[in-house]
């Protein structure tokens, strides 16, 4: 099946209906294995047991950026190809990405209190991640503020493309500025700097959360397609009632 064939709402519903239960089950199983390994992993020599927070904080940070990148890709689909499924994908991702961005900030803040002595500092990494959360919330507010769904979709697409400039800023902020937040320790040119006993549980947790995000996104997309069909039927019923 060609990739473009999937970009049809009816085919997407049929395929996602078959894939979603397996994807959800795989996500939960991967997370269960990840947490089992994470809670059996040794304490870090500097962070002690608070390193356990990293097994959720780091995936939340990666996925908040991944979710926004998917928003930007969907925005291209809306503005360039005007594809309805791109708008569905865009609308479905915004609340999910917002939750992951919030959890990244929340868990990072609770990790910072015992490790840095403060819940928050206005350094480049933390501030750019807060901007990412505000962008997600802005997209949700923008869609709900514009009544016409097509106009709302295009406006949200433009905002998400403009806001995408913040994603590399989040990623490279620790390299470009002198920050309290530590530099990258997994995705580096010279390889990870984390010991394998901590790295593997982190990667498995990250895979589990990625599968969970994809499953939530797929389910939210299915809801949005059904909602649009319902809107069409309601409009038709109202028109028929008016002519009767």
């Amino acid at each position, binding site marked *: 099946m060609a990739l473009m064939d999937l970009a049809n709402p*009816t085919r997407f519903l049929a395929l996602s*209906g078959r894939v979603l239960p397996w994807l959800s089950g795989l996500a939960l199983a991967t997370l269960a294995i990840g947490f089992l390994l994470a809670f059996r992993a040794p304490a870090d020599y500097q962070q*002690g047991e608070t390193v356990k927070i990293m097994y*959720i904080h780091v995936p939340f940070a990666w996925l908040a950026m991944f979710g926004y990148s998917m928003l930007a890709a969907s925005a291209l689909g809306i503005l360039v190809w005007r594809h309805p499924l791109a708008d569905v994908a865009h609308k479905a991702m915004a609340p999910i990405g917002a939750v992951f961005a919030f*959890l990244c900030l*929340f868990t990072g803040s609770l990790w910072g209190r015992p490790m840095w002595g403060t819940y928050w500092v206005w350094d480049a990494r933390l501030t750019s991640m807060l901007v990412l959360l505000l962008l997600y919330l802005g997209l949700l507010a923008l869609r709900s503020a514009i009544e016409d769904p097509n106009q709302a979709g295009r406006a949200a697409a433009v905002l998400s493309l403009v806001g995408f400039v913040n994603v590399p800023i989040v990623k490279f902020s620790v390299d470009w500025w002198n920050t309290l937040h530590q530099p990258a320790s997994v995705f580096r040119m010279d390889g990870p700097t984390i010991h394998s006993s901590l790295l593997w549980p982190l990667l498995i947790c990250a895979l589990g959360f990625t599968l969970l995000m994809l499953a939530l996104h797929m389910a939210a997309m*299915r809801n949005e397609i*059904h909602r649009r069909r*319902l809107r069409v039927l309601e409009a038709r019923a109202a028109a028929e009632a008016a002519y009767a």
Partner: protein
Amino acid sequence: MFGEHGFFILACYGVSALALGGLALWIILDGRSVRRRLNEMEARGVRRRSAGRSDA
């Protein structure tokens, strides 16, 4: 269990579980509500033009 910083660790995992569980529940309930309303409309005889030839 987690030493002197147990509160911070448990709070992180607890709030994350609540937030993600709440998000999943919201999506599931939203889906049920929309599909129930769709079924009601179709039971009243209101159908999409393409429903007969392309619906899964």
